[in-house]
Each structure stands twice: as structure tokens, then as C-alpha cells.
């Protein structure tokens, strides 16, 4: 079927390709979209919207949205499930924001993104008269506040817990430690009798969790990462003593060597395998470690307590997600109603029950029926009540990496805490100015 024209056709095709390549070279990219950022939102506009968050793990979110859609057929919400990795969630959101796309009307925003998203004006400022936050945890409200303005609505919170082997402590008549020194005493009494067991671990792999853990160590020793007026203070004697505690832990074997590669899951596994006496982790571990299908060797043998500190109770780092409205979204009226509806006391309670997400409504933590169902709930409430946020920095990606650099080098013994955190102080001063 092909005939002599083939050759010509080929040449023509290739020539065309060449021409196009050069044509592409001469085309200058148009200036980026001119959608001006409107300063005031139209809170009356109703209509369909989207909601973007990480994967709906329990299926509860879909049920909730179905319920909303059934009640508001002309203001349907479409769920957009993002990837499970926080980095990829942020990527997707930043892509939309830099393209000034309103594809995601409502987003689920990690607490540490608040400053960046607000400073770039990617998310809508929420007027407090339209978004009342009475009854919400003060620390959660603080997490959505940037320069005294509110940019998100608290949805879930999170705080750290100290998991410990109640069976072993009880056998010695010991109780959960409240200070580091007490923890060491307990360990000295128990760990030598159990070969292969270490005293304590948190998350010390080089990732966001390291920032969380080192901030906890610093805060628990009476130091601060950033002072109230936003100045870094990571090389004060108090802060350094917190870091030194971790360094000594690695040095004298209180923390196992491999904890330098631990994220949440690795540390949970070590605890479940009976290799740890104490574990710092999030509430999600509780139900998994209680599983009796053979995956956990510590089911029924552990309990939780608030984190210990240097001279008294420790300070957790605040986690959680908040719901925010994209600046470029349409139908912000519906977005507002949807956000408020999602975070009513009843809906937060349901989310706690179905997917173990820590609520931001304060009263739920003292609900006695919930406390029976979630034995860790009271301790979690205490942990969150005193929890401190991570630095609110516009360049959070740089800040957290700088913190991780300094901490990781210190924990690996490449630098002394003094040297590493002096450097960090200089870097942070530059980054948060």
C-alpha cells in the first residue's frame, strides 16, 4: 500500500518536526495569568465545591461527604483524595496555588503549612465573626493563626504520648516516669534483665519527625526553638541540655543505635516486638499495638503517659490538620458552611470513633464514654493542652531542614551540640527575619 511517496512523506514529517522545533524556540511564553487576587471573599456565593485532603483511610470521610451532599444537593462537595505523603499533598496544593487554580476549593492544611500558605495569600483569611471557634483547643486555634489573623479552621489535632511496658513496670512496682532522670532509673532497673531490649526511642530518621522530636526535647528541657517574639533561641543552655539528652541517649545505649533510622512505623514495630521499654509516638499506635492477631507482642501489656521532661512533665509538639479555603476558589459561601459543618462537635466525635483522629473540640477529651473507648484520650488531651507548635516560618521547608541538619549531625556524632546549634542559630536568624 505504501508507494514511492513514502520517502517524501518521511522527509516531510521530519522537516515538519524540525520546523516545529524552531518554531517552539521563537515562541515566547506568555506572561502568567492575570487573575488578580481579590481581597474580600464573597461569603454568600453557593454552589458545588471540591475538598482535597490525603487519602480517606477509614471511608468515613466519604460517608460524611455523602451525607452533606444528600442534604445540600445544589452545593455538592467532590472529594479529591491526595497522596498519603504530606510532601506530595503540599506539592499538589502549591501547584494549584501557583497556577492560581481554584481546582481545590477547600484543602486540609497541615499545621506547619499555615505560615507559608497565609504569607503567600494562597488561602483565604477567615473572619472570626463568620467562623466562631469557641470551645476549640487554644493550641489548635493558635495553629491556624498567622500575624493575628485566622487562615484555617481547626479540624484535627495531635500530640505525642509516652508508651510504656506496664507489665514490666508493674512487676517492679514502678510507675510511669515524669522526668528523664526517673525514666533512666526505671530503665536501669528493668532493661538489663531483658537482652535485646533498649530503654527508649522516638523518631530520629532525618525527616519531619526529627524536627518534632528535637523540638520536644528542647521544649521539655525548658528551652524554646523560637521565642514568643519569633527570635530563634536554639543555642541557649536550656535548649542545648535538651539536645544533649538525646545525644547522651545514643551514646550510652539508652536509645538503640538503629533509632537513627526510625520513623513512626519503625519505632512502632520495635515497640511491638518487645525491643523497647519506652516509646514516644502518636496516638495511632495504641490500637495497632493492641492487636491480638500475632502482629504485636505487647498487646495488653502497655499503657500510655504524657511525655517526661528534664525537671518535670515534658512538652509535646503539636500536630494536626486544619481546613482552609483556597483564595482562588469559587463558591466560598458553600466552602464556609461545609467547613463549619465538618467540624461540629458531633462530626468530630464521629471522626474520633471511626478513624481515631484527635478532635479539636475541647470538651470531647473529658467525655467519659469516649475515655472508656479510648483509654489514651485523657493523656492525649493533657499532651495537646501543653503542646507547642513548630516554628511558624514562611520558609518552613528551609527551617525544618536546617533543624534536621543540625540535629542529625549531632546525633551521628559529627558535631557537638554547641557547634551544630550555634550554626543553626545563625541560619534560623537569617531564615525567620
Amino acid at each position, binding site marked *: 500500500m505504501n508507494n514511492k511517496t513514502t520517502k517524501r512523506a518521511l522527509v516531510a514529517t521530519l522537516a515538519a518536526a524540525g520546523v*516545529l522545533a524552531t518554531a*517552539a524556540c521563537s515562541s515566547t511564553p506568555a506572561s502568567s495569568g492575570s487573575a488578580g487576587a481579590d481581597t474580600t471573599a464573597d461569603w454568600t456565593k453557593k454552589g458545588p465545591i471540591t475538598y482535597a485532603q490525603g487519602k480517606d483511610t477509614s471511608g468515613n470521610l466519604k460517608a460524611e461527604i455523602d451525607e452533606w451532599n444528600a442534604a445540600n444537593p445544589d452545593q455538592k462537595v467532590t472529594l479529591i483524595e491526595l497522596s498519603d505523603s504530606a510532601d506530595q499533598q503540599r506539592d499538589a496544593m502549591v501547584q494549584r496555588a501557583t497556577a492560581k487554580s481554584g481546582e481545590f476549593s477547600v484543602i486540609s492544611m497541615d499545621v506547619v503549612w499555615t505560615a507559608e500558605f497565609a504569607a*503567600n495569600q494562597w488561602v483565604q483569611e477567615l473572619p472570626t465573626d463568620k467562623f466562631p471557634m469557641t470551645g476549640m483547643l487554644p493550641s489548635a486555634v493558635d495553629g491556624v493563626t498567622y500575624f493575628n*489573623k485566622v487562615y484555617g479552621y481547626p479540624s484535627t489535632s495531635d500530640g505525642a504520648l509516652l508508651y510504656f511496658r506496664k507489665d514490666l513496670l508493674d512487676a517492679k512496682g514502678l510507675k510511669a516516669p515524669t522526668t528523664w532522670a526517673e525514666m533512666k532509673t526505671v530503665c536501669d532497673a528493668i532493661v538489663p534483665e531483658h537482652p535485646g531490649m533498649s530503654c527508649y526511642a522516638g523518631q530520629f530518621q*532525618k525527616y519531619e519527625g526529627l524536627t518534632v522530636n528535637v523540638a520536644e526535647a528542647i521544649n521539655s528541657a525548658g528551652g524554646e526553638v523560637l521565642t514568643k517574639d519569633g527570635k530563634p533561641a536554639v543555642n541557649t543552655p536550656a535548649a542545648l541540655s535538651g539536645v544533649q539528652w538525646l545525644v547522651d541517649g545514643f551514646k550510652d545505649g539508652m536509645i538503640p543505635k*538503629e533509632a537513627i*533510622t*526510625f520513623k513512626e512505623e519503625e519505632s512502632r*514495630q520495635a515497640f511491638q516486638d518487645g525491643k523497647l521499654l519506652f516509646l514516644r509516638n502518636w496516638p495511632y499506635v495504641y490500637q495497632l499495638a493492641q492487636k491480638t492477631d500475632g502482629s504485636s507482642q505487647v498487646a495488653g501489656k502497655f499503657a500510655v503517659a504524657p511525655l517526661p521532661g528534664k525537671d518535670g512533665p515534658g512538652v509535646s509538639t503539636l500536630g494536626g490538620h486544619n481546613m482552609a479555603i483556597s483564595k482562588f476558589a469559587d463558591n466560598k459561601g458553600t466552602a464556609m458552611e461545609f467547613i463549619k459543618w465538618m467540624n461540629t462537635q458531633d462530626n468530630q466525635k464521629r471522626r474520633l470513633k471511626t478513624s481515631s483522629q484527635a478532635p479539636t473540640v475541647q470538651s470531647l477529651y473529658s467525655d467519659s464514654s469516649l475515655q472508656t473507648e479510648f483509654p489514651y484520650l485523657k493523656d492525649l488531651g493533657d499532651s495537646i493542652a501543653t503542646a507547642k507548635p513548630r516554628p511558624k516560618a514562611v*520558609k518552613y521547608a528551609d527551617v525544618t531542614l536546617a533543624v534536621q541538619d543540625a540535629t542529625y549531625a549531632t546525633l551521628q556524632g559529627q558535631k557537638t551540640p554547641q557547634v551544630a546549634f550555634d550554626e543553626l542559630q545563625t541560619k534560623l536568624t537569617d531564615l525567620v527575619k
Partner: protein
Amino acid sequence: MLVIALVVGFPILFSVRESLFASSSGVDPTTGVLQSGEHFAGLSNFTDIFSNPTLVVGVWGSMDRLVNAFINTTFFTVVCVVAETIIGVAMAVIMSKAFRGRGLVRAAILVPWAIPTIVSAKMWALIFDANGVANKLLGQNILWLADNSYSQWAVIVADVWKTAPFIGLLTLAGLQTIPDEVYEAARVDGASGWQQFTRITLPLVQPALVVAVLFRTLDTMRMFDLPFGMIGPGKYSVETLSMFAYFENNALRYGPAAAYSIVLFLYIVLVAFLFVKLLGADVVGDPEAKAMAEARKRRKVAARQAKAEGRPVPKPVRSTITSGDSPS
């Protein structure tokens, strides 16, 4: 074609443009709002690369983050590509022997490569876990996934495992065009297996092999998802140029990110150029048909020389083709 030109050409141009702009950003002290605006910065993003070092500590000592990424990229490329080439060619040679079960082997070698990189990164992370099976088999307690030279080797093992089959398969395709008679002739002349390999196999698969190695080299230089997914971002012992550019992009410094991408791009172009110059220009396609014809002639002569001692090479079986085409 038009769309492809648009889709590929346009973003590249966009990146080049981006690399020439800097976003001036300062935070308004009362509202906290970022005062953003882009201005033309000329080549300052490029000059800043050299004037503004950020010291990081990787495996190679304390140095600028870009230099560190550059060395890592080069190190990975050299080690991985060399290992992949050796293993890949060995695979191809073994597979080209007419043994039973070759089909199975061919399917087996596709497995590493067919597994999506994100999955294979996770799989290797699981294997190299501090309490994982690699340490169990080795009886060691090596912290592969920390930030040290073991992490580098973990990445290299995973990358070589994943991509050696690529070279193997392309080389095999090249091997299959070598007529058996060539080997037979050599065997009759008493050439040893090794001689056959170096004197016949290698020269004849060279074009296919060079293309395969070239593409692997260019690909490894852009390596991103394996170290990123396995070891993680911000690990200077495995941070490649792509990862660094990604980090900058993520930190919303689009200008420098684009500039780093272009640095990487130029580096790749340079390597590709050297590659082609050193390893046989005939893969590029000579600009003129004359040179091409000459090259072909030269190659034939070389081939003939290689088996010069042997009995005459059977002529291309023209009759087969003719008979094949006659029904048309």
C-alpha cells in the same frame, strides 16, 4: 508532533526564562504577607550558585550543597552505569545462548524493571531497614537508611538491580543480529570463548550497547525517585542534582531551581557529547550521508577483518529475501 513540540519545548523555554528571574520576597512586618514580585535578574541566579555556598556535610566532607549534589550525581552515574553495563552484557550473552528456558529468563529479567520505581524504592527500603532482611542475611546491623556511605551503596544496589536488565535487553537485541556463522567460523579457527567475545561480540553489539549505555547514563544523571523514595529528601550523602533542584522548587525558589536544572541539563549535554565523541560517532547519525556510507563501509571492513582468518563469510542470503518478496 506539534503538540509534542509544545509539550516539551515550551516547558524547557519556560524553565530557561524562569532561571533568569528572581522573585524578591520580603515579609510585610505587620500582616506577615509576602511581598512578592518577579524581576528580571539576568544571570544572577547562575552566579549566585557560585557566590553563595551553603555548606553541607555529606560523605565527601563539608562542601557547598550544589557541589555535593554534583559529586553524588557523578559518583552514582559512574558506579551504576559501569556495574549495569557489566551485568547487563553478561545477562545478554547468557540469554543469547540457545538454551531451553530462555523465554523464562527473559521474562524474569524484566521483573526488576517492570516494578514501578516508587514501589521498588519502598521494597528496597523495607529490605534495607535496620531490622530488615538484608541485615538479617548479612548478620550485621548496618544502618543503610541513615545518611552515610552505606546509604549510597543501598541506592546503587537498588538502581543496578532495577536497570541492568534494560542494558541486557537492548544488548540482546543487538546480539541477535550477529549471524551464528561468524561464531562458527571463529570456532573453526580455534578462537577461545573470550576471544570470540572481545573480538566479535563486543564490536558487533557496540552500536546497540552504546545507545543503551548512553541512555542509562543520561537517566542515572537525572536520578531522583529512587534515592528520594528510599533514603529520603535532605540526605546529603545521596542527594543528586535532581533532588536538589526539586527541593529548591519546593521551597518556591523557582529561579534557582530552574538554574540548577539548567546546570544539570548542560552537564548532561556535555556528557552526552563526550560519550558520542569517544564511543563511536556513528550512533549519532553523521550529518552527511557520505560520511554515513563511509562509516558503514568502515564497519564492514572491520567486521571482515575480525574474522579475516576465517573462511569467507557467507554473503547476505539475497536469495531468501528475493524469494520472500517475490509473491508481492
